[in-house]
């Protein structure tokens, strides 16, 4: 496998312009004869499909949901970054770029991140033109707030529903193309494999989730934008249907999987409360703007609180330990997510945690309510407070919230070059599904930015450069042997699942996998634990393939069968994550190896050995994947230890 990042020539700030000036284009008459398949309708998928349609390509767009508007991008609360510098607080493209590389703990590719920062402003313009109702000031101008890992206010937001509004904007643009006939929409349809012809991605095999029928679809190019693989952990902030199967299928067809171990643990989620729990709910990071995080200073107080003998409000100011403000005076409660998560875990492990389980810390709005008034706090976070109250049955205006870290986002993903093309020619990957821009840790409000950057402003250029060589490639019918064989293999997999007829439900096996992941491949990892995890995951895999129980039939809708096929891929992902975490003998961003920390317990990178993206090549069922390295070169950024003190 050859990894060629294809970074254009020239100084960093000029690379994207140079690329655009020299790339190949497709003329309008030829666009009509070129088909693009887009998998996923989240921010990246919908914005790409809509833009391709507007350009005149023929697009087929697939989603497992009943409507493209359901994609999980919709749940992003906080906001979207851009380097507009509207507040005049010293922001610039360069600063946004720098913050993103630093926030990612120097494990992202400079050229990609710079391009991301440079198109960020276009995204805001585009969304406003679509009618996205961003928050505004009384003068009618757009409002900004600040977010973790930045010292400027560059985050645009729409109440606590920014992801929803941006997705609806992209969805509407997409439906406009459906109406125009350029995009063919396939809902409740799952892509179960890719079709490779002469080494190039030329189509997909789908399964209709309502009828259970398989179909073959041709595309001159294929874009996969199916999000992350956080649900490997069973409990995460991802939606129930979010899955990593399209990524694993790409990996099995020859796409390198990069940095699988980089998973982001979000510091502000509602703590786990019971065995029946199906998912974890995120409380937007924006809450850290006005909320202060603390635990009791004295262990006795923490114990009394856990036993229900004391309440948070019983403790006076000097009985509280605002540990983030104490440890990181410069950034305080606004340190990046990985730092905030680990600090919470450290306090809870040391016995200062609150809640009935001891796995929770307080997020307190008292100071802000005193300073700004309850109405202001309600205007800023009302819907989040309501959500908290509905779930926990506590009033966060009176009592501090309780929060704990949870799996939220995966920075790792399918390896792509500068053009967002994977190691399989013609297969592109966008949004959270690729590994591209966030290094080892993603800053808040950057996921929305990346999804839309890829879909609106990067792929529409780069895919032309690829398709320009394809204008003479006629459409395939789907009867070619590669299509027939791929469909046969996909069908066989589903038949095999149905034939096992064991005794374990899909969820019970998934929960077992999730526990192994959380305990050994979670917030803190070490060699012994990771080796143990790999063995345990292999055992779960065996149990799954011999003892899973799926009632019903594979004709018609069968939700358990859908879940089982995705769990099979989560098991592969889990194994890959553990292997990558074992290989990476350093701590960086969301990857924390206990063996590699400073005396104060901060992450310690090993730049001389690990300044690379770890790219894994599939070698066959039950064979260990092979590691390839993309060395990361920093020409502009000065690599340093991250310091938020």
């Amino acid at each position, binding site marked *: 496998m050859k990894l060629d990042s294809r970074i254009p020539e020239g100084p960093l700030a000029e690379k994207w312009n140079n690329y655009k000036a020299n790339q190949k284009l497709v003329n309008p008459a030829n666009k009509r004869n070129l088909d693009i398949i887009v998998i996923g309708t989240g921010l990246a998928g919908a914005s790409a499909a809509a833009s391709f349609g507007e350009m005149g390509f023929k697009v087929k767009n697939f989603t497992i949901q009943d409507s493209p508007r359901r994609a999980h991008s919709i749940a992003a609360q906080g906001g979207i970054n851009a380097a507009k510098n509207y507040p005049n607080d010293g922001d610039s493209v360069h600063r946004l770029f720098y913050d993103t590389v630093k926030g990612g703990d120097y494990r992202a590719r400079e050229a990609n991140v710079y391009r991301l920062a440079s198109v960020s402003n276009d995204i805001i313009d585009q969304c406003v033109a679509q009618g996205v109702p961003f928050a505004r000031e009384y003068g009618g101008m757009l409002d900004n707030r600040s977010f973790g890992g930045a010292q400027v206010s560059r985050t645009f937001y729409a109440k606590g529903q920014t992801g929803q509004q941006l997705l609806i904007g992209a969805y509407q643009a997409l439906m406009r193309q459906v109406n125009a006939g350029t995009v063919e929409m396939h809902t409740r349809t799952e892509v179960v494999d890719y079709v490779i012809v002469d080494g190039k991605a030329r189509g997909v095999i789908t399964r209709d989730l309502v009828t259970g029928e398989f179909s073959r679809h041709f595309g001159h190019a294929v874009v996969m934008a199916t999000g992350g693989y956080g649900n490997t952990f069973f409990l995460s902030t991802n939606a129930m249907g979010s899955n990593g199967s399209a990524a694993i299928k790409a990996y099995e067809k020859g796409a390198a999987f990069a940095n699988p171990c980089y998973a982001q643990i979000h510091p502000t989620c509602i703590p786990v409360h019971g065995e029946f729990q*199906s998912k974890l709910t995120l409380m937007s990071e924006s809450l850290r703007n006005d909320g202060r995080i603390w635990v009791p200073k004295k262990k006795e107080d923490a114990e009394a609180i856990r036993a229900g003998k004391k309440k948070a409000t019983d403790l006076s100011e000097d009985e509280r330990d605002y540990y983030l403000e104490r440890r990181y005076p410069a950034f305080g409660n606004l340190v990046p997510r990985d730092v905030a998560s680990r600090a919470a875990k450290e306090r809870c492990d040391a016995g200062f945690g609150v809640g009935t389980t001891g796995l929770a810390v307080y997020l307190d709005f008292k100071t802000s309510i005193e300073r700004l008034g309850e109405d202001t706090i309600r205007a800023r976070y009302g819907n989040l407070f309501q959500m908290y109250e509905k779930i926990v049955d506590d009033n966060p205006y009176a009592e501090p919230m309780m929060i704990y870290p949870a799996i939220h986002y995966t920075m790792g993903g399918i390896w792509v070059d500068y053009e967002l093309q994977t190691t399989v020619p013609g297969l592109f990957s966008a949004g959270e599904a690729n590994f591209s821009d966030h290094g080892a840790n993603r800053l808040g409000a950057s996921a929305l930015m990346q999804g839309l950057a890829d879909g609106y402003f990067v792929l529409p250029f780069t895919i032309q450069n690829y398709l320009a060589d394809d204008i003479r490639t006629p459409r395939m019918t789907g009867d070619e042997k590669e299509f027939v064989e791929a469909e046969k293999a996909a069908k066989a997999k589903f038949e095999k699942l149905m034939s096992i007829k064991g005794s374990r439900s899909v969820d019970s096996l998934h929960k077992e996998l999730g526990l192994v992941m959380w305990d050994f491949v979670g917030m803190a990892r070490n060699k012994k634990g990771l080796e143990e995890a790999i063995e345990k995951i292999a055992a779960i895999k065996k149990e799954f393939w011999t003892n899973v129980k799926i009632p019903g039939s594979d004709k018609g809708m069968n939700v358990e069968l859908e879940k089982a096929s995705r769990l099979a891929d989560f098991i592969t992902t889990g194994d890959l994550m553990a292997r990558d975490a074992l290989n990476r003998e350093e701590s960086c961003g969301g990857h924390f190896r206990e063996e590699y920390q400073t005396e104060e317990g901060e992450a310690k990178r090993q730049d001389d050995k690990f300044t690379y993206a770890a790219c894994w090549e599939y070698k066959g069922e039950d064979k260990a994947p092979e590691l390839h390295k993309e060395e990361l070169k920093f020409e502009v950024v000065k690599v340093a230890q991250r310091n938020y003190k």
Partner: protein
Amino acid sequence: MENNISLTLKVWRQSDSKAKGGFETYKLETVSTDSSFLEMMDILNEQLVGEGKEPVAFDHDCREGICGMCSLYINGRPHGPDDDVTTCQLHMRKFKNNETITIEPWRSAGFPVIKDLIVDRTAFDQIIAAGGYTSVSTGGVPDANALPIPKDDADEAMDAASCIGCGACVATCKNGSAMLFVSAKVSHLALLPQGQVEAALRAKAMVGKMDELGFGACTNTGACEVECPKGVSIANIARLNREYLSAKLKD
């Protein structure tokens, strides 16, 4: 405080869109009142799988009240007995020990049943496709701050835009009208200068599509507003009617 309750569930089962459905009764012991309604459904399904039976199919995804995927008619109310929440945010503390809970799919001509509690809501997508957007393509748009927008207008647009497309308004309406859904989109865009340009045309196209797809006419019963989990107001319907009329006058 956490508590365990026992429940009797009367659940609508229907193997596919053509089958004649009917209620099945299930007993559930020890459901924690801290669990959500959908977690209770998971417990039921785990129990059914254990017995080798097919689990109940229901739509859900984000489980935090934003994707609009979950539905369910619970004891005669869309999204159940709690106000301003979706079914996924409904918690079992709203139910009593030994209560019987009746669970049905959305029932409306516009939303045919696919299986059990799952219905087909693609009609909503078709209504949006008919005109629920501003006609701008990617690129070549002015600076985001080029047009100041009064905060009140932006806030009001945001309120209308918070519709999650769940369909509760249709399910609860005795006429099966989709007016609240349509008016939320028409209002959201009409309140902003970017969307104002096409406002009348949009209203006409979307209402036309709604009628064509078999949704009923609005007779102002106001039931939709009561059941909307996102508090979308029927004031939007008045605005829609104004835009619609102005489009008709131009004809």
